[in-house]
């Protein structure tokens, strides 16, 4: 309606200001996806610029599509006689942590799964082309599976000058399952140092809720409905947490009537069939949330709950929202406070999983 | 003069009058002040009210339909026909019904007529566009119809009182 148009236009003027209540919104393309940073604080515009630079730098270190990145150089020397590659401290730390998380999840998360990803066409190009997707044969996968072994990824040297290498030819690392979460972790201190007290960092669907909303209430984060991605089926109340979601609906293709999605099981080489539609992991440790969302999808609901019972309170701790194929949603009790479940209309039921 | 020829002539004159009024009204668009689609003073309703009060409902209907058809042909806009006809018929039926009851003055009749006219136009628009989105405009149009109806009500009271009754229609 015409009389609302001036109001909308004036809102654009406000977008240039930043202050306690008007955020600075920065949109950027990095790590193969769109990212939106919404920052509140007196120096939010400066913070937005620094954040953008930081993300681009990390993308330059961790992207498999850039030949000069740490990951590409690491992959290029796999199995060489002298494969040790100097990597940035951030890369060394991430590789070590990802390996640990892989061990914790019994191999459900494995960053050395890259050769299998490439066999399916899920990996190398910066822009996924449908024509690249293919179903690899069983023999092909059997030949590649031995290359999936985080035990054969080595990190040594000091924290400031790490060395990393892969000890088998054809091995490769893909940090897609943990990069965005880790980037969020590295952004948070950068932002708080720049006076940002409240922020929502949307790194390609990986959401970090920094602080609270400017009015002091927790951030309200919706969880996408895997059956209808235009809506959300519940709202979580979060403060200083990162949520990461993995779902079969995110990237998939169909061949001869069968749908194949992109979350591959490192044990079989095939898309994981664990009875889950999506997993959302929530933690103050972004890398943990990111990696766990993938790992738990592969593990399935029962095993994920077991993992949560055993380790959910260790370190930064974590919580899970597990959406099962039958429409039942398991939500671990750490998320119970402020939970706003809206999924009944869409056919979802939920139960709180307690220790 | 022959009874029916007189009636015919009278209807023709009123039709021409209604057409002229609606064209003139269209020249001064209220929508510049208040951006509501289809907002008009509804002065052409004056002829309908007059016809309903002084002549017969059949003549009023004939005048309305003829005016709408001519207006669409003259304006070269056939889709507008659906809107003006629906709105006009809704208004006519409502005003005819209210005139049957004893308790109203022409203020109430015209306000109800204006409201019905807008409702009819919006319904026609929804049918033509196949989407209920435009119904958002009905609420403000209804509010406006209280004002425009009051204006036409006052004008029609003057008309009905001052214009001499036709010789064959002494009330």
């Amino acid at each position, binding site marked *: 309606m015409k009389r609302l148009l001036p109001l909308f236009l004036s809102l654009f003027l406000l977008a240039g200001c930043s202050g306690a209540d008007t955020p600075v919104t920065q949109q950027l393309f990095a790590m193969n996806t*769109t990212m939106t940073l919404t920052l509140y604080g007196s120096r939010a515009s400066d913070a937005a610029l620094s954040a953008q630079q930081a993300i681009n730098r990390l993308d330059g270190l961790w992207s498999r599509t850039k030949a000069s990145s740490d990951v590409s150089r690491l992959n290029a020397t796999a199995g060489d006689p002298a494969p040790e590659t100097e990597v940035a401290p951030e890369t060394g730390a991430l590789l070590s942590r990802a390996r640990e998380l892989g061990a914790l999840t019994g191999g459900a998360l494995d960053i050395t799964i890259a050769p299998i990803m490439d066999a399916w066409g899920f990996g190398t190009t910066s822009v996924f082309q449908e024509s690249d997707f293919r179903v690899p044969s069983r023999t092909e996968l059997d030949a590649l599976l031995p290359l999936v072994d985080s035990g054969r990824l080595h990190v040594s040297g000091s924290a400031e000058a790490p060395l990393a290498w892969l000890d088998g030819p054809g091995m490769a690392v893909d940090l897609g399952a943990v990069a965005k979460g880790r980037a969020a972790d590295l952004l948070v201190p950068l932002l708080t140092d720049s006076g940002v007290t409240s922020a929502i960092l949307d790194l390609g669907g990986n959401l970090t809720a920094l602080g609270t909303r400017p009015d002091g209430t927790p951030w309200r984060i919706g969880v996408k409905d895997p059956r209808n991605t235009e809506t959300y089926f519940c709202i979580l109340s979060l403060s200083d947490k990162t949520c990461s979601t993995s779902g079969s609906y995110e990237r998939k293709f169909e061949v001869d009537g069968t749908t194949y999605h992109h979350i591959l099981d490192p044990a079989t080489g095939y898309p994981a069939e664990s009875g889950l539609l999506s997993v959302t992991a929530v933690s103050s440790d972004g890398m943990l949330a990111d990696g766990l969302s993938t790992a738990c999808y592969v593990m399935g609901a029962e095993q994920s709950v077991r993992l949560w019972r055993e380790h959910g309170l260790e370190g930064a701790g974590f919580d899970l929202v597990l959406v099962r194929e039958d429409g039942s949603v398991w939500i671990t009790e750490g998320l119970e406070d402020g939970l706003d479940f809206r999924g009944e209309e869409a056919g979802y039921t939920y139960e709180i999983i307690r220790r | 003069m022959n009874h029916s020829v007189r009636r015919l002539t009278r209807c023709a004159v009123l039709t021409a009058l209604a057409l002229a009024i609606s064209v003139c009204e269209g020249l001064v668009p209220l929508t510049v002040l208040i951006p509501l689609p289809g907002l008009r003073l509804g002065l052409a309703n004056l002829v309908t009210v007059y016809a309903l009060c002084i002549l017969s409902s059949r003549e009023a209907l004939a005048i309305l339909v003829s005016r709408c058809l001519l207006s669409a042909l003259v304006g070269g806009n056939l889709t507008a026909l659906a809107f003006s006809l629906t709105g006009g018929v809704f208004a006519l039926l409502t005003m005819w019904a209210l005139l049957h009851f004893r308790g109203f003055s022409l*203020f*109430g009749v015209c*306000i109800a007529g204006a409201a019905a006219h807008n409702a009819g136009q919006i319904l026609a628009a929804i049918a033509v566009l196949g989407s209920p989105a435009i119904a*958002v405009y009905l*609420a403000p149009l209804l509010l406006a119809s209280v004002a425009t109806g009051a204006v036409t009500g006052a004008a029609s009271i003057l008309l009905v009182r001052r214009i001499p009754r036709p010789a064959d229609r002494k009330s």
Partner: protein
Amino acid sequence: MRSSAAERTRPTFWDALVVLAVLAAAGSLLFLFRPRSGNFLTARIVLDHELVAEIELTALTGPVTLEVPGAPYPITVEAEPGRIRIAHSGCPNQDCVHTGWVSRSGGQIVCLPNRLVISVSGSNAPEVDGITG
């Protein structure tokens, strides 16, 4: 037709009732169409950080087709009352086309190769600050 209505010069009690009825009808319509996510939907089409178009989806009265100028791969946006989609795109992966219609506040269509983002927002404060997934 003779009618007492034609005789009166002053508004009557029943006239007031008519006014009240019309106002009540308007009021209930306003309540039905109160601003909620989806009632004053606006779609913003942003190409490489620059806003190229803003479409008020709920104010549309019919379908609108828009070729986005300056996009690396030719891209056609189609908007209808209350919803928007990318109808055709020359990009290699077609994710954007497969997204289909978006009709809710907070909805987004992204075409990465084109660096194009279409975001739909409602006029009032949205219910959630972000959506994970």
